[in-house]
């Protein structure tokens, strides 16, 4: 195998590959990227056995072929090469080496045989649809903060993507929760998505997927089966196993009867929460919200370190209410609001609180209060 490729193109492909590769590996081949040159394209394939990414890049292929080298080392080398350089990769299969040449730099990396590289078995995808990148970006960006890291509840370690019934008909819905906050984000159901099996997309896959979604004009081909999900652009194909578990019935978590409504400028609210939380101890950052007629008083009282209080003008017409929250959760949900005011719907100081943006019910957040 021998081909020449522009450094920027190579870096993009290799960077994507090395981010999939697990840092701590016991199986040497899994640390490698499989490079396949064929026709006028080179394919870079990396896997951690749960996720596989294949990146296609244009190159001047002199000799077709395939081999594998350490993804991390190759990435480091390419990263340090000067911008605009033309890089030539050629395999010496007898010596088991891949040489990398750019200008006057010369590298030689040990290879492992391509036959040892595990290629993810293909799946029978029952559902295939196309979705604009901005739509998927919103679905995952607004929900991923609520993904749980708790290993015992492994079925919460991802975003539950499924089709659901909403007020205006069927929607494509993403839900994530860690038991303390929950995000439920809806998008119009893309054509062909109806009947899709609900899947829990793992946290790491959500992170890798994000790299495919930066281009506003891109359309992503989504394929879903009971066990796998695939997101593809013309150049990159990301295939991932989904979490083998049942996502809990989140619908009973979302409060229906919360009537005490507070409307507040989300940015002002977030800044005020951030300010008063400064004095609270690192571990239990509890903020108290005291609501009265059109007035919100945020306060923190940390006996060891100090106290803080700030008053905010809000729209509130219900009876007095005092309720506490983890400051971090309030900041996270407030930062999801980008167009209108944040609308909070409370019930009592012990019940889950609901938050949405204006009257938009396509992005709904639930947060559990904290005893203060």
């Amino acid at each position: 195998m021998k081909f020449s490729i522009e450094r920027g193109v190579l870096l993009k492909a290799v960077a994507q590959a090395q981010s999939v590769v697990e840092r701590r590996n016991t199986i040497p081949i899994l640390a490698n990227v499989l490079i396949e040159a064929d026709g006028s394209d080179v394919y870079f394939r990396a896997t951690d056995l749960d996720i596989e990414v294949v990146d296609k890049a244009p190159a001047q292929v002199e000799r077709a072929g395939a081999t594998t080298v350490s993804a991390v080392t190759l990435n480091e080398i390419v990263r340090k090469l000067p911008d605009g350089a033309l890089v030539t990769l050629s395999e010496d299969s007898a010596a088991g080496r891949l040489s990398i040449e750019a200008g006057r730099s010369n590298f030689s990396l040990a290879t492992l045989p391509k036959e040892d590289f595990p290629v993810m078995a293909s799946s029978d995808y029952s559902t295939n649809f196309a979705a604009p990148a901005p739509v998927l970006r919103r679905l995952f960006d607004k929900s991923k903060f609520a993904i749980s890291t708790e290993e015992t509840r492994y079925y919460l370690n991802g975003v539950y993507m499924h089709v659901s019934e909403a007020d205006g008909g069927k929607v494509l819905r993403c839900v994530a929760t860690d038991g303390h906050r929950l995000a439920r984000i809806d998008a119009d159901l893309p054509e062909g998505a109806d009947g899709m099996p609900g899947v829990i997309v793992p946290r790491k896959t959500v992170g890798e997927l994000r790299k495919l979604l930066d281009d506003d004009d891109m359309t992503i081909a989504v394929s879903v089966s009971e066990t796998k999900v695939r997101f593809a652009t013309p150049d990159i194909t990301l295939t991932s196993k989904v979490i083998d578990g049942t996502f809990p019935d989140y619908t009973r978590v979302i409060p229906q009867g919360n009537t005490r409504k507070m409307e507040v400028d989300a940015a002002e609210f977030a800044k005020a929460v951030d300010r008063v939380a400064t004095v609270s101890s690192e571990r239990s950052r509890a903020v108290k919200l005291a609501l009265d007629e059109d007035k919100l008083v945020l306060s923190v009282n940390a006996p060891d370190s100090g106290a803080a209080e700030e008053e905010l003008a809000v729209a509130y017409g219900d009876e007095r209410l005092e309720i506490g929250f983890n400051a971090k959760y309030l900041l996270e949900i407030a930062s999801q609001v980008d167009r209108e005011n944040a609308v909070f719907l409370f019930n009592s100081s012990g019940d889950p609180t609901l938050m949405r943006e204006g009257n938009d019910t396509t992005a709904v957040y639930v947060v559990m209060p904290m005893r203060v």
Partner: protein
Amino acid sequence: MPSLCRDCLHDFETAARCPQCRSPRVLSHPELFDLTIAHMDCDAFYASVEKRDNPELEGKPVIIGGGRRGVVSTACYVARIKGVKSAMPMFKALQLCPEAIVVRGRMDRYVEVSKQVRALMDELTPVVEPLSLDEAFMDLTGTARLHGHPPAVMLARLVKRMKEEIGITGSIGLSHNKFLAKVASDLDKPRGFSVIGKAETMDFLRPRPVRLIWGIGPAAQDSLDRAGIRSFDDLLRWDLRDLQDRFGAMGDRLWHLARGQDARRVSAHSPVKSLSNETTFAEDTADPDILDGHIWRMAEKVSARAKAKDKAGRVVTLKLKRANHKGLTRRQSLHQPTQLADTIYRTARGLFEGAVGEGPFRLLGVGISELTPAADADREGDLLDPDAGRRAEAERAVDRIKDRFGADAILKGRALR
């Protein structure tokens, strides 16, 4: 050389017998009246308490420990002559010393006596750092003028009073830091009083094995062995950097200890770092129902202690010992600290699910660590477990009933498994 009579506390210059009371129990050391860091270790504490409370045991071999399956927790010196040691399986102890009288420990009583000993130590210095019920460090720096006597005299008086007023004996180690004081107290047990001075520190340590260091268990011993380190002399041949590279943080400590240096202060307020309870079963079991009952009871005990101390833990640990004595520990960090038996039990139960196939087991323990004040605990509910709040309320109601009518007044059915 400064000398002290351990019987009449008279101090004098070198003599084989006390010039005042003619006792041979004379302590002489060039630095005797200059050293201030002490370690007091009661002699076979639990056994001594039992013998004191029951004169019939006097002169007989006594072993404290539980049940047929248990281990020796303490053996009196009579039993130790036959080779009985702490932590030895009971059946083995009884093979070595069949005539031994086995007494089940009475922890409440030991706590009580320990408090009496502590009260005597508190009279010597405000800086007492207990390591357990029967041993403590004391820093007597600057107390000579207050007491009108140097620390050595006050320490000799302490063990004398322990014998006369409480009826138990102890051994004293006196030196210039904690490490050496602890080593010293063990040199001449029982009823010992050993001194390691600054001038002799290096000569004293050099030929001795590194396992002298408190905290070097069999595992650390192994890794030191592999590095060819057996004695302090071996240790002295290593550079600080090499020790750090090989042993991490422990390497740094080893380098200093090899030179008799230990900068740790005696601290009167060394915080509790974890709470745990464990039980050894009468018979090995793999029965999940029986083990479930044990998990609950241990969780409840840990929770009760946490509540009594106003503490909560952020990490729950499950410890199991298999029939072949191989240990198995699983831990889980919690989203928020807890002191609730319900949460500790559920978390430990979850950890047990992952280990259930490894049975049968002979021992089970449950613990919490990363302790925080109770005020930080259990403040957030769980969206996905809406009943958790009600279970917590039920637990608090049960606690109030127990406070009023005693710990056995109300039990969960689970506790009877």
